[in-house]
């Protein structure tokens, strides 16, 4: 793997009590009047693997897009205490974002797609292509640098999308139901590969999903959300150690946590509108 060592730059452990990102009373009301998210308080420490789990329409994407800075909260604050800030005081965390669709430039090769964030930063061509090739190799796509998205399978396109998110060596990777459109076998493989990269690299992940099983398999912590208005109903920890593999998937412990989370999700759905 070229450039492997640089991709695996493990960030220094955060001082205790200083999360990577802290959400305080975050609320989002869209112009249409929909209250999509209400009263979210959430600390995400460095190195965390957090899933946002909830039924469709409960505001998972809205919350994720607020963390990404793509939309502003209507009230409440989102602080990045450990990240650099620009002259106007706005936080400049290094973000990677993976959408539900691969969202690639169809006119660019896999390599150019993976190199896009670096190109926008103004990095010289040879340097950014080296790094993009490293990121592609990291997601198992060595040899496909010159291939266009059209000629890649759905799973491979998603891998390019992940390589693009990783190429800037982000502090935090935000993923919005990234594997929802894939078949189960491909999804399992991508789950394993994602965990492997996360363990090696040590960035933080916020992973949106509506699959109980996927969230339990991947995360250290699960925020169970409820709809109307969207809110975090409960947090569930998954104590199992990493690395996790097929053995974990079939263990009694996994089944037990899935049960707990399913019950929490069921309650969240049943209580909807009550708050």
């Amino acid at each position, binding site marked *: 793997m070229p450039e492997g060592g640089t991709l695996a730059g493990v960030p220094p452990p955060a001082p205790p009590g200083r999360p990577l990102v802290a959400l305080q009373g975050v609320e989002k009301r869209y112009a249409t009047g929909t209250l999509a998210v209400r009263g979210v308080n959430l600390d995400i420490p460095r190195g965390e693997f957090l899933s946002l789990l909830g039924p469709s329409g409960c505001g998972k994407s809205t919350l994720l*897009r607020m963390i*990404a*800075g*793509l939309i502003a909260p209507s009230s409440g604050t989102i602080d990045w205490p450990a990240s650099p800030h620009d002259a106007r005081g706005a936080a400049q965390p290094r*973000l990677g*974002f993976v*959408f539900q*669709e691969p*969202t690639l*430039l*169809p*006119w660019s090769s896999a390599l150019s797609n993976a190199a*896009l*964030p670096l*190109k*926008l*930063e103004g990095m010289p061509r040879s340097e950014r292509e080296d790094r993009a090739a490293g990121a592609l190799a*990291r*997601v*198992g*796509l*060595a*040899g*496909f640098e010159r291939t*266009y*998205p*059209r*000629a*890649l*399978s759905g*799973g*491979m396109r998603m*891998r390019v999308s992940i390589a693009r998110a990783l190429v*800037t060596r982000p502090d935090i990777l935000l993923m919005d139901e990234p594997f929802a459109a894939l078949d189960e076998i*491909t999804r399992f*493989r991508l789950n394993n*590969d994602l965990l*492997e*990269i996360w363990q090696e690299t040590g960035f933080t992940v916020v992973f949106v999903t509506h699959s109980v099983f996927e969230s339990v398999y991947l995360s250290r912590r699960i925020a169970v959300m409820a709809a109307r208005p969207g809110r975090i109903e409960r947090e569930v920890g998954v104590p199992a150690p990493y690395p996790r593999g097929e053995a974990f998937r079939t263990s009694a412990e996994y089944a037990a946590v899935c049960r707990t989370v399913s019950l929490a999700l069921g309650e969240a759905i049943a209580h909807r509108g009550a708050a």
Partner: protein
Amino acid sequence: MTGVDDAPRPEPVRRVLFLPAELWPRILMPILIGALSLGAWEWAVRANEVPVYILPPPSVIWAALLRDWPSLSVSLGITLQITFAALIVAAAAGLALAVLFAQSKWVELSLFPYAVVLQVTPIVAIAPLIIIWVDDIRLALLICAWIVAFFPILSNTTLGLNSVDHNLVDLFRLYRATRFQTLIFLRLPAAMPYFLSGLRISGGLALIGAIVAEFVAGTGGRASGLAYRILEAGYQLQIPRMFAALFLICLTGIAIFLALGLVQHLALRRWHESAMRKEG
């Protein structure tokens, strides 16, 4: 991490005489129909002894084309010049204005209605004015052809610039891309297929605009494109020559359409669905 083994393998394309096999029927069938129609025309005219000044048979038209080729080819050259100049100006202006529209909603709101006015005004109605105002008759013809060719490029490109996947727009925002970067690396490439299909429509329209304007200019105008030849031949009752000029106009239109289609295919073949070869 393990490599991926779900790579689709490209299928080799079967070729006959350098062209993909499934392309041949698309070339041969129209030619066959054309040949049959010409044969029927020739036979019908001869069998019914239709006079040449009413409807000449294809053989006589062909003879007229060969005989008058020196003067007709000069006219063809002039018509082609006007058409292409108008198309190039329309493409450049349409693209530039569309980019301007994409940069500012206000500019679009204030100017787009006038582009529509330009589009809906019949060219025959304003051609006389333009010919009066503009001294140089060729320039006047060029302006007429430009007016007709301009709108499809403008409206298609505007549509293309605005129909970018909004997730990609978000991605560019996330990486703090400048407006210029977003335009160059995202909006313009995404608008490319729209621009090219606009260009393809405008190619034919530019030719029509050039011909129509020359008809309006009439024999009084000092231009001598193909439309002038048709008028001239009409006054002299040289009906085969009229048909020969008409034939050249049709041929030019078809050639423009095919050439721009080829441009479209070459520019987009690597990524866009419209340029994908259909399998099977």
